[in-house]
């Protein structure tokens, strides 16, 4: 036994940055909210109207962009870089799509652990973002058992 065992545990709560684009990606992210209990969860998405669903947690809105919109993607990346350098999350988690891709790469660069849950909308193959970012993620999940691989993505169920 060391001194540590007699001292109260003052553990800082982990800060989780949960990031997704709109529609189904956001719905799937919210289905995992319970996993963040005991953590400080901060949400980033593309639609201001979603804020009440996660209040009173901190909430950021970024622009949406697809692979068709390179200027929009750059704006999105810069905004995410600003949010991540301000929040300094311990963990970045995303269900996709483009916002999650950038958030995981940027968060990873700043030392955050990363979690990528590929959207259930990717039935035949993993999403493009998932294929690119999954291998870098510390935890990589798919929601279709047949897409699971021994080294990830892993299958733990489907959220919807």
């Amino acid at each position, binding site marked *: 036994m060391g001194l540590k065992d007699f001292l109260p545990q003052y*553990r800082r709560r*982990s800060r*989780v940055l949960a990031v997704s684009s*709109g*529609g*189904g*990606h*956001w*719905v*799937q992210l919210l*289905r*995992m*909210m*319970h*996993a*963040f*209990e005991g*953590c400080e969860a901060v949400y980033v998405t593309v*639609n201001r*109207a*979603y804020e*009440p*669903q996660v209040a009173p947690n901190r909430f950021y809105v970024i622009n*949406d962009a*697809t*692979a*068709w919109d390179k200027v929009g993607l750059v704006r999105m990346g810069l905004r995410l870089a600003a949010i991540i350098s301000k929040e300094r999350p*311990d*963990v970045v*988690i995303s269900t996709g799509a483009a916002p999650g891709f950038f958030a995981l790469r940027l968060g990873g660069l700043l030392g955050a*652990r990363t*979690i990528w*849950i590929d*959207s*259930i*909308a*990717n*039935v*035949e193959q993993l*999403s*493009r973002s998932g294929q690119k970012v999954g291998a870098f993620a*510390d*935890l990589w*999940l798919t*929601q279709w058992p047949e897409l699971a691989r021994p080294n990830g993505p*892993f299958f*733990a*169920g*489907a*959220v*919807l």
Partner: protein
Amino acid sequence: MIFLTVGSSLPFDRLVAAVDELIAPAKLDEVFAQIGDTLYRPQKMRWVQTLSKNDFDRVLADARFVISHAGVGTIASALSLGKPLIVMPRQRAFGEAVNDHQVSTAERFGAAGHILVAHDAQQLATCLAQVVSFTPKPRSAQPRAVSQRVAAFLNTLVDP
């Protein structure tokens, strides 16, 4: 009332026009549509560009059945209320999405008996004839199992 929704972002003229043109021949009762950035202006139905989450939920609850793109958010919402849903997946070839993931999502959920699937206006007419006698098969998802997997990962990050 029949609820038509194509999500709140990318346009989906092919579906909105197909429904508008089928209202008379298929003898549809009142249709209400959320058309997002769709350019086509419906002639035979009431429409709005976007609905708040509360209004969306209310319209969905009131609807006799739903017609939509193959967004997993909409599919999950309809299934959770047991609403019959006819889906037309967006296709990349028509500039409706950046890839064809909605086609495979629709086929997978269709094969499982959760939804009816139409790839064009003609198949939509067939589905409209079938929907009266269609009872969606409920879906069993495992959001708790996925949350537990994520929570287990988050717990490994806490210093002992």
